[in-house]
């Protein structure tokens, strides 16, 4: 187990190193001089030269790469050109907001997708199965930005049931200021008992979280169904039927546990995917997360900020994969010796 763990961690580190290099290469390709972008168009040659020195743009590329890696490892992710703040601080602000949204979406996905998968497996080949499968395929086919616009138009602008945009009603900052611990507003509000902000955050979250949840609900329902059907034709399911249990009991009380393993792995992978998918939704609902930060960064050709977001998401992806592999090796000992 230890050997497998070491090897797997080594691989992950290698991939992260590759990601850093690739990010660096792509960032060097971005047109426009970061020094000009930082110092402004009317900067004097001296100011420009100072900015070039500050960013280390005079060094050779390998030296720049080495410096970049060294800085990243030391926790220096550069300074954003448009917020003029350390990228790391910006990410610490924006990531928890994205996490909040995606976390809520995944909760919805599990709460809806697993029961739907069970229902489909229970009525396999019949009308409920067919309609659940078709709806799942529809859910994974929907363009998120369009769904976001549609829900926003109908339920926020139109019917007025939910707020149109933002994370919470910022006028509440005056009446009941939020004490920030985790930067995840809903969590901070919950644990400090700040009910007005909690209620406001939750109502702001409903629509964007539902939109992001569409894809995970679809894949979780499909995977749950497939895994349950696979379990339900195994020998143990036959014994359980022979002990007097009906189809529903066999599925929910016996087959569900082993069937959840692949579903859990899937959720870890869908998490990283949903973070990126959420970018588009954040843009529509003006949610102060990574997506909005990325969009602002790209608009202003903010190289360090784009690199920071890219790296963060890539590392999240590598971490999610690592977690999946480790989970599976715990479940299935044969994986370790591969």
């Amino acid at each position: 187990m230890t050997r497998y763990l070491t090897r797997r961690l080594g691989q992950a580190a290698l991939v992260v190193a590759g990601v850093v290099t690739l990010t660096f290469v792509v960032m060097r390709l971005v047109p426009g001089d970061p020094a000009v972008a930082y110092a402004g168009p009317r900067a004097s040659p001296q100011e420009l030269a100072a900015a070039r020195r500050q960013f280390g743009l005079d060094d050779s590329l390998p030296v720049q790469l080495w410096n970049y890696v060294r800085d990243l490892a030391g926790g220096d992710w550069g300074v954003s050109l448009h917020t003029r703040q350390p990228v790391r601080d910006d990410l610490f602000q924006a990531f928890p907001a994205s996490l909040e949204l995606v976390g809520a979406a995944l909760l919805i996905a599990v709460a809806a997708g697993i029961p739907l998968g069970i229902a489909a497996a229970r009525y396999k080949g019949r009308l409920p199965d067919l309609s659940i499968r078709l709806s799942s395929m529809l859910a994974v086919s929907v363009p998120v930005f369009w769904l976001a616009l549609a829900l926003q138009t109908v339920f926020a602008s139109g019917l007025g049931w939910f707020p149109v945009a933002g994370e919470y009603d910022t006028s509440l900052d005056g009446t009941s200021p939020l004490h920030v611990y985790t930067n995840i507003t809903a969590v901070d509000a919950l644990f400090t008992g700040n009910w007005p902000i909690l209620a406001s955050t939750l109502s702001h979250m409903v629509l964007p979280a539902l939109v992001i949840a569409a894809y995970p609900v679809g894949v979780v329902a499909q995977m749950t169904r497939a895994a349950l059907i696979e379990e339900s034709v195994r020998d143990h399911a036959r014994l359980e039927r022979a002990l007097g249990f009906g189809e529903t009991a066999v599925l929910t009380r016996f087959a569900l546990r082993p069937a959840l393993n692949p579903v859990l792995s899937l959720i870890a992978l869908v998490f990283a995917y949903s973070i990126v998918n959420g970018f588009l939704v954040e843009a529509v609902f003006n949610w102060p997360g990574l997506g909005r930060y990325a969009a602002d960064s790209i608009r202003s050709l903010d190289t360090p900020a784009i690199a920071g977001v890219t790296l963060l998401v890539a590392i999240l992806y590598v971490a999610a994969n690592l977690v999946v592999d480790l989970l599976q090796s715990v479940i299935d000992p044969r994986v370790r010796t591969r």
Partner: protein
Amino acid sequence: MTAPGGIMPGLRRTPLRRVAGIDRLAVAGGALLAVIVLAALLAPWIAPYPEDGGSATHALEALLPPSGAHWFGTDQVGRDVLSRVLFGARTSLLIAVAVLVISGVAGVVLGVVAGYAGGWLRDVIMRVTDVFLAFPALLLSLALAVVLQPSVTTVIVAIAITWWPWYARLTASVAASVSTRGFVDAARCLGVPAPVIVFRHVLPNSLTPVLVQLSLDGGGVILTAAALSYLGLGAHEPTAEWGLMVQQGQSLFTTDWWVVTLPGLAILLTAFAFNVLGEGLRVRLAR
């Protein structure tokens, strides 16, 4: 953005027994897709206002609601939305086919070499694959689109770069198991050169799962391309592109719903057709 099906290849496939309705489903998906492809091919002839696929403007006819003359209404500069949706199918399908061909060929070639060779070569190829796989496709595409100037070609290149690793990974695992079969050993013993073994014997026997995955991924490519155009990083005026149409009409959603709703539905329907077809093929193959 990864493909909806792109997440699945590493996970186990279900040996489903014959499930009622499944083949009808694949047929339905295929038929729907065929209709869309036909509409795209015939767009210049069947679109009610052919010239409106391009740059024509009719200020007096702007934002007309759906009617007998304009089934899907008209957009903010008076172009027929139905015609633009039909022409948009050409753009979306072109992108989908181009991305799948480029990334499919690149992924399969690298994957089959990695799977056959094994050892250090496999390790190097797979680690490079992992690096590209770790990149959020949408982000890399965004960065590339900034470098390469927004255009349909940029979208194709950007998505293909982030798409091939899925096929490389899938092909490598299939090719590795094909390479252990008797006929490959036999060819090796007879002194057949490695490139011939790889491309004449291993490759043809490793293709089926990739082909199914490609049809599953069509929907994902369509969605990613639409998202990039929506962000202003893909097709631009006067090209008819569904994501772009949604972006340009988004402020009109409340007042003139048809401008945004119908292109969005076109994206949904096309991605859905790919997914239904791919799912049907997958289940059929697993059986």
